[in-house]
């Protein structure tokens, strides 16, 4: 049984709201007293993933399970899918349009950042169906 579970519907049509879910998760983690490094790792990974979901997939859903020893996040979208995950994982590779770059994203750092800040990252993706990303951050004893 998890300490706490959270669910968010992420709208895909409003880039200005991207990050609301991640900010809310941060508030919960801080209230629960997790150490600042764990909080930071979770929210950076989640924020990048949330931004990706808005940029590329027209929004989606985020589920977060918070346990004392680990935080698990599942991000599900029904977007176009990722044709080449290995390529998308390379720093600097991006398919973000110019309007997204103008907002400070699309540098091709999203997925590498997510990997960097999590202990486990799994991507299941199918073209034309969508993408599910499972992330885990462990809490050091």
């Amino acid at each position, binding site marked *: 049984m998890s300490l706490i579970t959270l669910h968010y519907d992420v709208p895909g049509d409003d880039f*200005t709201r991207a*990050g609301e879910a*991640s*900010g809310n998760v941060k508030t919960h983690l801080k209230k629960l007293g997790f150490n600042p490094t764990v909080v930071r790792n979770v929210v950076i990974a989640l*924020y*990048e993933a949330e931004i990706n979901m808005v940029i590329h997939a027209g929004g989606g859903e985020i589920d977060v399970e918070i346990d004392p020893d680990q935080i698990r996040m599942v991000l599900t979208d029904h977007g176009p899918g990722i044709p080449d995950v290995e390529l998308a994982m390379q720093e600097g590779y991006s398919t973000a349009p110019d309007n997204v770059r103008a907002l*400070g*994203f*699309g540098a091709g750092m999203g997925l590498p*950042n997510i990997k960097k800040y999590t202990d486990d990252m799994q991507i299941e993706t199918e073209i034309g169906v969508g993408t599910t990303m499972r992330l885990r951050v462990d809490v050091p004893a």
Partner: protein
Amino acid sequence: MTVREIQEILSAQVICGEEFLDREVFSACGSDMMSDVLAYVKEQAVLLSGLVNPQVVRTAEMMDMQCIVFVRGKYPDDSIIGLARDRDIVLLSTQYPMFASCGMLYEKGLRGGAI
């Protein structure tokens, strides 16, 4: 360096967060790419940016940044100011461009943090 010193060095206008000017910052990051900020900033830092949108404030929030300086006289709209106010983030606006702003703070001892 305190936020107040940053404000004085850059002759910056305080947009919000007047009550937090005595906060200490230990490093600075100048960037218009928020993904780079998320990738590289480690310590309690001030963010200098020429980008004015809500994601700048959200990025600062995720990184526990105390203060954002908008360079080149950029000024955020009310929704962005509200977002920062809700998160206790100080917003400053300076007329100096990015390069000069970073240089002035560096000259006074503020550094970029570990690579």
